[in-house]
């Protein structure tokens, strides 16, 4: 038995939302992912279903027909306790190289000053931690990462930049993350990651899934340049650790 049950909310004609308590909590996320797995394997085999987990919610969308909310909520609440019979989805820890050179970490000096940390200490804190992927959205492959240490919490920039480069690693509030493509953005940029999180040329464009873990490791400018070339020709290697093994 789990601690929490979801509340089910109607979300237009084609979707329902299952919502757990409004907390960033790994137990809740695991509960959601396991139910998601169960639904995929046993319940929602009909064409047209899509499932979008994020933090404390799971959205189920059926593109081909309208959903009978009453009947469907009833089914969901019946299925929910049965999910324990499913093996949870495989999870991985991805180790991603980040170059914290000042050329890329354009806000590094300012952020270090604001946090009263030296740059090496800031890098040490950012790379020591293991982050959980609580959601993917905003842009294709943009990961919402939880688990930032309190000592690295810093407000987003007062004025967003019109252009943040692809691969930029940022800090904002209680979050850290990577811009998967060039876009406007208000995060403080502290480095650059050479591995593209989202690459449409790959058979699986986004290797990360919600529930996976991320750890950054610092690389030198020379290593960055090498990785960059490898990444452009598509031969970068990814460090992946199976968390269930």
């Amino acid at each position, binding site marked *: 038995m789990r601690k929490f049950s979801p509340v089910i909310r109607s979300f*237009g004609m084609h979707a329902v939302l299952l919502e757990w308590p409004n907390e960033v909590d790994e137990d809740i996320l695991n509960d959601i992912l396991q139910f998601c797995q169960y639904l995929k394997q046993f319940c929602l085999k009909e064409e047209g279903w*899509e499932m979008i987990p994020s*933090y404390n919610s799971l*959205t189920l969308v059926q593109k081909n027909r309208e959903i009978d909310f009453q009947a469907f909520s009833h089914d969901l609440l019946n299925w929910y306790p049965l999910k324990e019979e499913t093996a949870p989805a495989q999870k991985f820890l991805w180790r991603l190289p980040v170059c914290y050179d000042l050329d890329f970490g354009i806000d590094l000096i300012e952020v270090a000053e604001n946090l009263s940390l030296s740059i090496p200490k800031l890098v040490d804190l950012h790379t020591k931690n293991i982050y959980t992927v609580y959601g993917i*959205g905003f842009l294709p492959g943009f990961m919402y990462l939880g688990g930032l240490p309190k000592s690295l919490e810093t407000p987003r920039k007062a004025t967003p930049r019109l252009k943040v480069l692809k691969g930029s690693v940022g800090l904002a509030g209680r979050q850290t993350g990577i811009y998967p*493509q060039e876009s406007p953005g208000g995060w403080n940029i502290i480095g650059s990651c050479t591995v593209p999180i989202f690459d449409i040329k790959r058979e699986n464009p*986004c290797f990360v899934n919600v529930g996976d873990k991320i750890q950054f490791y610092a690389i030198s400018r020379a290593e960055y340049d090498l990785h960059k070339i490898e990444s452009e020709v598509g031969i970068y290697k990814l460090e992946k650790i199976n968390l269930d093994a």
Partner: protein
Amino acid sequence: MLKVLKPGFYTTIQDAGRFGHRDIGVPVSGVMDNRALAIANGLLENEEEAAVLEITMTGPTLEFEHNTYIALSGAIMNPTLNNTPIINNKVYRVGAKDILSYGRLDKGLRSYLAIKGGFQTKKVLGSRSYFQAITAVTSVTDHTEIPYLPWPSFEPKITEIHIDPYFDETVLEVAKGPEYEMLLDRQLEKIFGNEFKVAKDYNRMAYQLMETVAEHNTNMLTSATLPGTIQLTPSGKLIILMKDGQTTGGYPRILQLTDYAIALLSQKKMGDTISLKLI
């Protein structure tokens, strides 16, 4: 090939959409006006999801290379075929060297060009709809060549249909969104008792409305959003997400447009009036 001689203001390839990848942040995309898609593809007896050109604001000039059949639908842009006026919602035969061009925008905003068999650009993640970082290009430019199948003969069951013009409809039907319950009486009064005008930011990602509703400080964790989701920002602005809208968001999702309301809204532009009606 269909040769683009002039691209128009903003012309893209769209189909029914790109489904099944929202969990990695890929929006649905696809035509903004599903109703126009259904009419144009229906007349040509195409598959429902056959790819069309979505033509925004001002139309392109296009040259055909092979014989085929076309149908236009959606916004009224005074199209001509070899300088002879043609109309929406009717099947036309076209041949090599024929030139399709567009004139002044009279009604609506987005017009559609469907072709027998659908445009044959490469599918990416199951769809031909243009989207940044997914497809190689994000809009057609001059010299773009768009592949299609030569279609020597076709006897359409229906050659023309008369549809009620929907450009002057202003009432958008909405269902309650997941955070509907947070709304206070004075906010509800404003939302359903007033008209709204489309603000200057309106595109395939989202439509913003000019009038504000009332500030709030409801906090929620990032969660899924859908095309047609109406978000209420902390400053009281309403943002209606559209087909290229982001797949997750952090603002309360107070209402959700019906599919038909999305089609209606997609024909509106800055300054146009709408009102919301709960179903």
